[in-house]
């Protein structure tokens, strides 16, 4: 009779050598027991790093109620929506790389935070929103126009957070640039896509686990005061840093950043009910994938990787039990979308990734 030990009788997924993905990478499915499911009419809001844009597109084209509260005026051809980043996310907030960005977006939307600096000048004379510097191609014509657009935008943010049933947030980065006067954080360093870097004002900051947990918890707590029933899914972006401001190799900074975010996500999910961690990071980066999900630049995630992530997501979270994912192609439509509000997100093929603007030249 075999000896008794704590691992005896545990399910196969707890054992590395029993993982079917060792033989068949596509079989890798690290999701075990989702805390909830998403019904077709549950309004889903996504936010986070550029990987979150993939999540948004797939949800919109696979029968989920992808909530969009900030749309291009219907007087204009929908083709301009993509150009001006409407529908990329539920509201035009662009990429929210850090938990602090999410927290400050909420605080700005509800009038709890008014940054000292809320406009950046661009080199062409236009005005840029420091908190979404690439959202308006060509910039705004003046600070007054930015203020008008921001009022519309923040109202849309409030509406999205109050109407959503499910919030999917992808943690992307720990590195940020901050205004030392009030702590406002930016998705891009001043000077990259507007504004001017001033070492007297702008300071680099690399968030810790504790800070990330605190920011994420504060965001969830506030959202749930306005929307008590919201269910939350946290993910960590598998996309490595494009650049690091720390004097070390960018990959070393990447592993620090992803480790912090992964630990923070774990802690948040343990602390909060109806708050799941979805392992998109693991699906892309695990040895089972053998690195095949990264593009030739070793950074961008190939469509096959996104498809693996999202088919896993749909399998476990879609209440209807979807088993396949509608592959995103230039001409793809959203045949399974049952929601009138779903935008033509499938047309938004060009992923806005603010990070790409960073270069050392």
């Amino acid at each position, binding site marked *: 009779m075999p000896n008794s030990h704590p691992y005896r009788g545990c399910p196969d997924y707890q054992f590395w050598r029993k993982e079917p993905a060792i033989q068949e990478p596509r079989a890798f499915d690290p999701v075990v027991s989702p805390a909830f499911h998403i019904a077709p009419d549950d309004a889903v809001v996504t936010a986070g790093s550029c990987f979150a844009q993939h999540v948004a597109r797939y949800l919109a084209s696979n029968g989920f109620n992808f909530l969009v509260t900030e749309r291009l005026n219907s007087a204009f*051809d929908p083709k301009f929506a993509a*150009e*001006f980043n409407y529908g990329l996310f539920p509201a035009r907030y662009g990429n929210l790389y850090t938990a602090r960005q999410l927290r400050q977006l909420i605080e700005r939307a509800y009038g709890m935070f008014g940054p000292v600096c809320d406009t950046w000048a661009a080199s062409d004379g236009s005005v840029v929103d420091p908190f979404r510097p690439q959202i308006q191609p060509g910039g705004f014509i003046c600070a007054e126009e930015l203020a008008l657009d921001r009022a519309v935008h923040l109202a849309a943010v409030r509406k999205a957070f109050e109407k959503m049933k499910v919030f999917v947030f992808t943690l992307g980065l720990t590195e940020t640039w901050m205004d030392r006067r009030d702590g406002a954080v930016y998705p891009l360093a001043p000077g990259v896509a507007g504004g001017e870097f001033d070492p007297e004002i702008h300071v680099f900051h690399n968030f810790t686990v504790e800070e990330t947990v605190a920011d994420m918890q504060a965001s969830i707590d506030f959202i749930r005061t306005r929307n008590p029933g919201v269910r939350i899914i946290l993910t960590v972006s598998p996309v490595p840093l494009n650049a690091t401001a720390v004097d070390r190799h960018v990959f070393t900074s990447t592993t620090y950043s992803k480790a912090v975010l992964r630990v923070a996500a774990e802690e948040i999910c343990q602390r909060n009910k109806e708050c799941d961690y979805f392992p998109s990071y693991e699906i892309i980066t695990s040895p089972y994938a053998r690195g095949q999900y990264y593009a030739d630049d070793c950074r961008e995630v190939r469509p096959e990787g996104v498809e693996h992530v999202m088919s896993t997501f749909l399998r476990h979270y879609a209440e209807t039990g979807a088993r396949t994912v509608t592959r995103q192609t230039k001409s793809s439509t959203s045949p399974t979308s049952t929601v009138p509000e779903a935008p033509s997100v499938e047309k938004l093929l060009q992923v806005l990734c603010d990070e790409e603007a960073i270069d050392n030249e």
Partner: protein
Amino acid sequence: MRIVFFGDSHAHALIRALNKSGDQSGLTAVDIRRIEDGKTNNKTILTNLAQSYPADHLFCCLGGTEYNLLGLIEADEPFDFLVTPDDTILPDRKPVPNGVIRSALAARMRSALGRMSEVRAQYSCPFTCVAPPPPFAHIDDTASLPRAFLPHLTKGIAPASVRRKLYMVQIGLLEAHCRAEGIGFLPAPVAVQDVDGFLLRNCWRNDPTHGNARYGAAVIGQMRDFQLA
């Protein structure tokens, strides 16, 4: 001096003015769409213009109603936008970024600007782009809207200030295009506009998108002054 004006529908204000005045001074206004038979609209630019209409100075106003196509009829979601920091948004209208307006108008203008380039390529003489007429301020009982707008008339006409802003954006795009292409640009005559920049009521008849003979005469006078200068 042979002066030729090529236009689409806006050519007719000048044609009417020339007919009315019996001008024999070498200025010709042509509806470039109807060269072949005088009545059928054809947006394809003929390739023998320089032979058919030799010119020492060419003026051109193709397209021109794009701003009205975008904003003459009230939208389902009434919108407004800024052109300058001092502008205001009318109550109960949703602000739209100026960049969206510019992109939408630029897309609508692309065809006319392309055709204008085709015309220009056939001539080596000076070439000047002429602005379309400014918007009217108020519609009245004598005005009739183009047929394309009739199904949408129930929505009403957009406010004058919004239409004027759309016109200003279109003119800005046109001027920028002309600068980039090294083409001269002639704005709408000041004499046909009221103090707010709207087309004077006596310069349009019953069609609010086109000028009348009086308007055409003002443009001709301006072309002559420009050409002499």
